[in-house]
């Protein structure tokens, strides 16, 4: 069978599994709102409570902040994925799927794609919330689309990390605890909320090389008056995302295939 022929059935399976998950949105569109609450509160806190004390040369803090909150919203949403998977695994809900003649990677992929489809709604809504609290958009429509796609890709990387954590920890609670840790560390040890230059030098190294920093920086260059090496930031971010996905997918599929209660 040709390569394409061998991929046809798994692709059809992933689409079917996606449809199953997407029906949930048709019935319960409010789940998207719940995902927005946490980052929105963070946006409000940093905009109106903490932001007043943060002064960054030549920038309105709300313009500095908003791209980072868009990124944080996606990291947060994607980190929740593994918890749901862990819960389904321990309750036996996925046994039905696991005895079907479908590939193991297909099942996991459909969940990541489902998450990504949801993020397609979350990202524009986050931008709108930013505009509502005074974000001044400076760029073309193409810029914001490109930037949002980069955030979407980062979400895929975090989704696979989250799945791996869910499969390893095997419980909802443990996965949530670890996911929050990653969410906080990855979100804040970056250029997201304050310039990296204000951190102690040992931390600067970590923050500067973080994929979140690269995405934050690229997003700022694309959507605000900030300037910088856009190509470098985008390529560094994409390299990170590719590396994360290439490592986590095989590990996750292996772990899922061997998962036994």
């Amino acid at each position, binding site marked *: 069978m040709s390569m394409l022929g061998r991929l046809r059935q798994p692709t059809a399976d992933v689409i079917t599994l996606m449809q*199953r998950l997407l029906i*949930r949105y048709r019935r319960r569109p409010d789940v998207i709102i719940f995902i927005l609450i946490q980052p929105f509160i963070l946006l409000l806190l940093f905009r109106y409570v903490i932001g007043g004390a943060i002064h960054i040369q030549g920038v309105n803090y709300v313009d500095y902040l908003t791209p980072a909150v868009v990124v944080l919203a996606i990291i947060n949403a994607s980190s929740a994925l593994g918890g749901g998977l862990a819960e389904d695994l321990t309750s*036996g*809900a996925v046994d039905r*799927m*696991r*005895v*079907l003649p479908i590939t193991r990677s297909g099942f996991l992929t459909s969940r990541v794609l489902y998450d990504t489809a949801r993020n397609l709604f979350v990202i524009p809504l986050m931008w709108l919330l930013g505009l509502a609290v005074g974000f001044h958009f400076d760029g073309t429509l193409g810029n914001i689309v490109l930037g949002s796609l980069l955030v979407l890709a980062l979400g895929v990387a975090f989704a696979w990390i989250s799945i791996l954590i869910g499969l390893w920890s095997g419980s909802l609670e443990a996965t949530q605890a670890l996911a929050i840790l990653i969410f906080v560390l990855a979100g804040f040890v970056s250029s997201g909320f304050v310039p990296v230059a204000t951190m102690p030098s040992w931390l600067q190294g970590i923050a500067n090389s973080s994929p979140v920093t690269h995405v934050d920086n690229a997003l700022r260059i694309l959507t605000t008056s900030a300037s910088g090496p856009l190509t470098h930031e985008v390529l560094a971010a994409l390299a990170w995302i590719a590396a994360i996905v290439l490592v986590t997918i095989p590990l996750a599929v292996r772990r899922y295939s061997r998962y*036994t209660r």
Partner: protein
Amino acid sequence: MQGIECKELRKAYGEVKALDGVSFVAEPGEILALLGPNGSGKTTTVRILTTLSTPDSGSARVAGRDVVRDAPRVRRAIGLTAQETILDSFLTGGEYLDIVARLRHIPRARRKEEIAELLTEFELDEIAKSPIGGYSGGMRRRLDVATSLIGKPRVLFLDEPSTGLDPHSRERMWDAIRRRAHEGATVLLTTQYMEEADALARSVVVLTQGQIIERGTPDALKDNIGSSVVELTLADPDQRSLAITSLAESGEPSPPGEKPDVLSFVLVKSSPSLLTILQRLSTDGIEVTDVMVSRPTLDEAFLYLTRKLEETPESQPAGIR
């Protein structure tokens, strides 16, 4: 061998031996019942045979394929109703059946037809368009079993399929299971109830603590399990162990102990008569103050058998082999 064939399956979770050398065979068209109390290894067996778990040792073939080496092929041939299946509650019953049918790669035309038939067979027509979240336990169970039948699997695994069903639904479920076997499917069902095994199965395998303690047709099993339960009250509780030894020598099953002065055991077909037993005890100087004989239901007899094995895991259960 197209049905189910397993040899010396062993599986341990830490110290606990979930399966300790389980072997049996089920042929196409046959309904085999795995009968046993909670924790006897029924579900572990089903999980291994349906590729959800792997044995520590031993081997199994389902539909002619090795469940470990050839798991994807096995999955193409089987249907499973697991003990607890949480269905996607936001889907309707009809949508759920359709999605599983598509994932089983059934062509569109046959899919519709088959789903319509299943909905009718399991009396789900009226609720097919409502979300599963609003179903009762029995409705969920029926949908669950219907789902496992999509695509006419050659080998069916039903883990306690009648849990939560009312008598009417249970009868219909039994009919559905019989129909599949009649059409040539191999059916393995697990149950805690002798009655269910008796109603459906051509062969019964009794599991306790991961071991097979009995196997045969339901009728042979009923004969073997015997006719009465005997309770002896001893004058002196200290003579209990002496009494056990005395009974063991005459080929009796070792009795399970609850009260120190009471010995109870099942009389099976091959057992000596009650009179012989009492004479034997008397010869050995053991005084019996009370004798009670009762006719157990099949389930009670089965309970006695399994309890007895748990009491004396090392000894071979002499009276029931």
